[in-house]
């Protein structure tokens, strides 16, 4: 009797073909935030750290890696526990997860890359308040499966990374006359290249970022409503 019902149930379940590991929809999860739905240039989130850490490329790279890791990992964790989280305290739970991951990143940096820890200092801690991270948790990870959430996190992380790296490239090039601390202008025989003090200040970051947003939006045709 009991086996009969089991068999019946088995028949009733429609066998869906498993979605490809990198299906079109999943590729879009990663590629959308790079351009059309970029967290910085389109959603205008995470500006504070984009201004603060982009004086030179190397610390920016560390920051980009840290943020990408935090977004992807917190997206994964929240997505795994999304059905357990009580709705009323979900923001607190999200914050706790982010804060834990950020503290871990900060401690690891302190142990293995003390120079970078000194340069980035407070800004690593401030990833906690980076609106991109929390935005992704609330908008995506709370309602999607773990694997998709990781892809979404990576996409947003990369979208953030390329923009701040681009800003850092121009700021270091014109502000310090170097790329990754390599004195590029001296190398091509322009030893008295006039470095621009404005680029070293946050104001320079505002200007570079503004131009970047302009170029990027005119390319994708995004208009604020």
């Amino acid at each position, binding site marked *: 009797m009991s086996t009969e019902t089991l068999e019946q149930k088995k028949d009733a379940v429609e066998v869906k073909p498993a979605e490809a590991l990198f299906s079109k929809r999943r590729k879009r999860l990663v590629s959308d935030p790079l351009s059309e739905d970029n967290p910085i240039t389109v959603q205008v989130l995470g500006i504070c750290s984009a201004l603060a850490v982009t004086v030179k490329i190397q610390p920016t790279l560390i920051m980009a890696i840290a943020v990408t890791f935090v977004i992807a990992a917190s997206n994964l964790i929240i997505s795994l526990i999304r059905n357990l989280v009580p709705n009323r305290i979900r923001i607190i739970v999200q914050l706790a997860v982010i804060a834990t991951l950020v503290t871990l990143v900060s401690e690891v940096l302190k142990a293995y890359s003390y*120079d970078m820890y000194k340069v980035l200092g407070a800004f690593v801690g401030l990833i906690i308040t980076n609106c991109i991270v929390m935005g992704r948790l609330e908008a995506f990870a709370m309602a999607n499966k773990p694997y998709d959430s990781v892809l979404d996190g990576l996409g947003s992380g990369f979208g953030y990374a390329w923009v701040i790296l681009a800003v850092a490239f121009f700021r270091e090039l014109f502000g310090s006359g170097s790329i990754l601390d390599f004195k590029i202008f001296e190398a091509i025989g322009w030893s008295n290249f006039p470095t621009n003090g404005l680029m070293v200040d946050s104001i320079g970051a505002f200007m570079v970022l503004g131009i970047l947003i302009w170029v990027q939006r005119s390319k994708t045709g995004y208009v604020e409503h």
Partner: protein
Amino acid sequence: MRQSNAYIIIFTAVMTVIVGGLLSLASQGLAPAQKKSIELDTKTQILSSVTDREKLSAMKPNEILEMYDEHIKSTVVDYSGNEVTKDEKGADIQAENVDVLKNYKKKPEDRLYPVFKYRKDPSSKEVYAYILPIYGSGLWDKIWGFAAIENDLNTIAGVSFDHKGETPGLGARIATPQIQQRYVGKKIFNEQGNLVSVSMLKGEGHTNISDHEVDGMSGATLTGKGVNAMLKNYLSCYKAYFEKLNSGEVANL
């Protein structure tokens, strides 16, 4: 069920325990590596006041620690210039472990003053420079560093400065070799034998700079003032030790 108060409380409690446990594990596990990084950072800073920075930055961590052990002998002195080996509780004091910030907050008379004696040739008995930690306030936040005084106890062999939050491109320049190079060879005592220290001038591009002055940083006069005060304060705290060194009352090595 997921919305009941009991569930929320249990969920929060479990989450707190997991998060707290994870973080304390990480903190415990990473502590030795962090201690090593900080030690390396301090020793690199001490050495950078007397060694070529590019050479230093090309060295591996182990080589730097080895070089430090070979060339540096440290001691701790008090305000009146006497060597201190035990603290109030009778525990041994290590110059490398003296927290300069903690001491900075005490009255000058109560502070411990580490001295790092640098020998150019590890086998010789002659001290080339006395490296002294210094601490003070810049424009926005703390500034600190090391001043190396040659064995005539007058000429500056080199300095290294660092800062927490000076303006990038302006006051933050104190951390660059370009600024620190200006201090090399300057004198801290005048002809009358008074401690006048070395002060940074206002504005940049001065010529005819005396032995007690260095060129300023354009746009960072207040940071410069902080550096001046820091140097003068700390050098005068070590003055008694210098006198005892000169009179031979304390051994120079």
